[in-house]
């Protein structure tokens, strides 16, 4: 047994024991201070990070649909990935952006990177540095992928690029003219793109991509959104959105599907799979607190009726 295993065991015993003690307190009618709840959430998130706990994942149909689409596109297809999120959402959605980028480049697709969020451009640069720079150094910018960066205007941008991409992005971020970029050969508008992946969850986001580009231009759109936004995407699935990656779980499922089909990716960094440890433990702790809360409620009600 290593130190990590011992640490893991002690932490889990501490969390389990503490919750049991709170449960017994609940039976006696003692309310739990919200600071105690915060403490246990902190412990349940910190433990799997300090003493790694990971779980296997199986891709659900909504996630598999996105994977299968990227997998089935012929080599050289144009995939547009839009980084429509800000730093606050990055821990949740950036892993899925990286996973889809990795997958697309492995398949030999030509990837167009852009952002509708001002702060998304910096995150885009980070992903390019991490995924393209480190894992695909042989690829050439403008030939295999292109970064057109951020454009202000929200849905106004989408309204234009659905008919004329060059009008909105006459150059890439390095001022290379549109006509000199090999990735844009034959691309006049979004209608010529084979797949659009919108990563985010705010406004503008997936809904705007569907409303202004996907539906009118008949372009397949895939969504990668924060978990809290995912329920809103289901009305559009599978007609207007071909698949949904919802939160860290969706990203973890995509990463595990990627590893299943391309085993060499198991050696790469899989942040979403790592994050499922804290998420799972935190979910369990929340469920136990809900049970404690209900126990407390029934005990209090019985006491009041008794009086």
């Amino acid at each position: 047994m290593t130190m990590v295993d011992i640490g893991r065991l002690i932490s889990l015993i501490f969390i389990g024991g503490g919750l049991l003690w709170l449960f017994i307190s609940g039976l006696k009618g003692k309310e739990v201070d919200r600071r105690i709840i915060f403490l246990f959430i902190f412990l349940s998130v910190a433990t799997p990070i300090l003493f790694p706990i990971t779980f296997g994942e199986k891709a659900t149909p909504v996630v598999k649909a996105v994977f299968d689409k990227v997998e089935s596109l012929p080599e050289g297809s144009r995939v547009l990935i839009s980084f429509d999120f800000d730093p606050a959402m990055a821990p949740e959605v950036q892993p899925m952006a990286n996973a889809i980028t990795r997958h697309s480049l492995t398949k030999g697709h030509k990837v167009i990177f852009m952002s509708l969020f001002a702060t998304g451009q910096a995150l885009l640069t980070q992903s390019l540095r991490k995924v393209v720079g480190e894992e695909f150094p042989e690829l050439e910018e403008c030939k295999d992928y292109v970064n057109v960066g951020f454009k202000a205007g929200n849905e106004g941008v989408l309204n234009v690029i659905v008919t004329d991409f060059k009008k909105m992005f006459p150059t890439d971020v390095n001022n290379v003219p549109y006509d000199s970029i090999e990735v844009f050969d034959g691309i006049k508008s979004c209608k010529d793109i084979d797949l659009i992946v919108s990563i985010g969850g705010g406004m503008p986001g997936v809904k705007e991509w569907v409303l202004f580009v996907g539906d009118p231009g008949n372009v397949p759109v895939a969504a990668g959104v924060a978990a809290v936004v995912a329920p809103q995407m289901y009305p559009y699935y599978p007609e207007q959105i071909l698949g949904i990656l919802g939160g860290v779980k969706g990203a973890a499922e995509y990463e595990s599907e990627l590893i299943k089909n391309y085993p060499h990716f198991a050696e790469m960094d899989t942040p979403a799979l790592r994050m499922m440890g804290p998420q799972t433990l935190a979910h369990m702790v929340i469920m136990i607190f809900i049970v404690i809360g209900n126990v407390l409620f029934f005990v209090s009600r019985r006491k009041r009726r008794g009086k």
Partner: protein
Amino acid sequence: MKREIPLLITFIVGVVLIVSVFVPPTETLGEDFSVFFDIIAVFAFFLGGGNLVQSHFSKARKRQTDWGYSIVTLVGFVAMLTIGLFKLGNPGGISAPPTAEGSLFQEIFDFVIMPLSATMYSLLAFFVASASYRAFRAKNREATILLVAAFIILLGRTPFGMLVTGWIPESFDILQIPNMAIWIMNSPNLAGQRAIMIGIGLGVVSMSLRIILGIERTYLGGDD
């Protein structure tokens, strides 16, 4: 005229945008009006920035309660503005974009703003727990249904859901917790969301008509 001119502008723009949906030659107008708004909003940045500086400066000068935070705000504001405008610490010099790789502006963004934003967002984890503890109590029938659904979704979002119900045979696989979670999201949740969205759409139509026709004028300041 102070009220009439804005009302007229509202009316004309509103009607033109409605007409542009049905009259193809006017379709680009919607896009143009969005650009006009963006231009106006950019000028408003000066208003907001000016107000921020003025209010915090005044607070610091008068040594009002918590004036120390105002100093922090002012220092941060001036620092980022100066670094971004004059490209201080930017390897590309003054002509390079402010977010060029290795620039001080980008580094402050990466190592200060991003972690701060992510920290605020991560507070949600704590607040979800405390809100769930308080809200998910079986006070009545509807609350009990909500509680059960919440449990299924929470379990379904973890590997334990499959662990607990993975033994259920294929023919009854809808009873497996992850599949139940997906069913809850796809059926009752979706129905509720769609109903709310239809109501919202109609509410927007009604509110928009009131504003376009000048019946609702509170946003201009004052009534009638």
